[in-house]
């Protein structure tokens, strides 16, 4: 019963993990023979400024994307968590971009964010404001991608928060009402602590999702301008499939995967202490 699974696991997970670790000690362009490189790949990571830039870019993306996502999703969930006319319609509308391929969303936003003829800049100009180099200004490009990713994914988190909000016992709010608590007091003193597990889940899910950022910069900017949107996965991809540095790329993959796991474990520790 489980043998197909074990076979599959062995070939497509266990072997690749072991082979990946092995590859980190070799130079290999996949065509020629593998060349022993000792710790060369690992040393190279630490002097590879472009890789660290890519890591930094990825963290920058997360630093904008996660808080934005939580705030917008919580706001929309809070508004939806009452008797609302056409509630199902709103829920479905918010969720729609999440279902649709990131490729569609990215091509769409490419047109919205264009400098000369982009829809958003046209709106800004018609309001008498200046144009913004959404995708061509190195200081702004990653912010644009983070906003786009939030727009795409926020519907999922609205649903998760809605589920979380419905688990908060009504008596708590009733008791607070008797004490004369304001809406914001109730929100910060009851809602937020009660849905802490959901917030944690949202943070972890969007962290893991954010670390795999690839197709958005691949289509929108190719990692530019000035490598400002080069994400870690995009860099790993380029090392392997543009320069054919299989050993080095595998090393970057292993290093980055460890970093991802470390961050998620740290988030877990931090939250568990907090609760």
């Amino acid at each position: 019963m489980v043998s197909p699974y074990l076979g599959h696991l062995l070939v497509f997970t266990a072997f690749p993990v072991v082979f990946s670790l092995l590859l980190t000690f070799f130079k290999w362009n996949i065509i020629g023979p593998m060349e022993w490189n000792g710790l060369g790949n690992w040393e190279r990571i630490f002097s590879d400024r472009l890789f660290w830039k890519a890591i930094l870019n990825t963290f920058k993306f997360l630093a904008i994307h996660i808080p934005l996502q939580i705030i917008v999703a919580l706001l929309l969930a809070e508004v939806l968590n009452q008797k609302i006319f056409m509630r199902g319609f709103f829920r479905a509308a918010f969720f729609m971009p999440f279902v649709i391929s990131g490729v569609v969303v990215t091509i769409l936003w490419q047109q919205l964010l264009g400098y000369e003829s982009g829809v958003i800049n046209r709106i800004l100009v018609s309001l008498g404001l200046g144009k913004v180099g959404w995708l061509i200004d190195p200081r702004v490009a990653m912010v644009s991608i983070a906003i786009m990713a939030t727009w795409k994914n926020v519907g999922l988190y609205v649903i998760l928060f809605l589920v979380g909000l419905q688990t908060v016992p009504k008596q708590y709010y009733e008791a607070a009402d008797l004490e004369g608590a304001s809406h914001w007091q109730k929100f910060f003193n009851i809602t937020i602590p009660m849905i802490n597990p959901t917030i944690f889940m949202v943070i972890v899910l969007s962290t893991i999702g954010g670390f795999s950022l690839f197709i958005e910069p691949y289509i929108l900017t190719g990692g530019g301008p000035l490598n400002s949107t080069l994400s870690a996965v995009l860099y790993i991809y380029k090392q392997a499939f543009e320069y054919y540095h299989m050993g080095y790329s595998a090393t970057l993959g292993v290093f980055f995967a460890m970093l991802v796991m470390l961050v998620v474990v740290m988030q877990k520790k931090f939250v568990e202490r907090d609760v």
Partner: protein
Amino acid sequence: MKAIKKIVVYLVLTLAALSFIYPFIWMIMASLSPEKDIGSLILFPSQLTMDNYEMMVAKIPIWRALFNSLFVSAINTGFSLIFASMVGYALSRMEFKIRDLIFFILIFTMSLPFQITLIPNYVLMVKLGWIDTYLSLTVPFMINAFGIIMFRQAFKGLPQALIDAARIDGCGELRIIFRILWPNIKPTIITVAILAFMASWNEVLWPLIVIRDEQLMTLPQLVTLFSVGGRAESQLGVKLAAAVFLGAPIIIAYLIFQKHFIQSMASSGLKD
């Protein structure tokens, strides 16, 4: 005061809904517009034209890509359902020595970031000679850990009497799973099917790596390469037409099965 609050609530909701829906409507209208009209905000162009779609069909094998994507996603969904049911059943209803170990490995592999296996899996495809074949797009995705967990959970909730009765009637284990138990866990089957299908349908990085033959490319891959390559000749309309073509099947499915989509895809977050 109450009335003002109501107005604010609906204003927020309407603005939010517009910001999620309007861009898609704009995209569809823009893809049907002559090139000069794109970029304006108006929804109704001076004339409707299929030029962009005709040009797209002439330039890239988009119908073939649609077939490839449907074929690959259907295969992956089918096999995921079968294998995940079998493993989920074994983990919840059968006694054997390494059961707990397997469950532990399952959870461990789920938390393993994909970046670690990306390169070696590509090498594996090269060595197996699976580059530019359907095999590389399907075989690695025929079993997914999340589906196993979902089925394990669902089978655990069924009464043992159901299985005992089937055994007395002389049913084999496979027959028990697919004939006796499956009809009782339809919501789980729908959830796993939607998740497996969507994961396969939306995947771009992997096809970009293992498929170079244009005839075998998946739809999102072909549209991506069309969009970043020079072949759209910086004509916005054609790019948007390709994006609409890629989005349409899922948008239509979503409009019909919206409840199932939301339940399934949200549960992928909740079960973690």
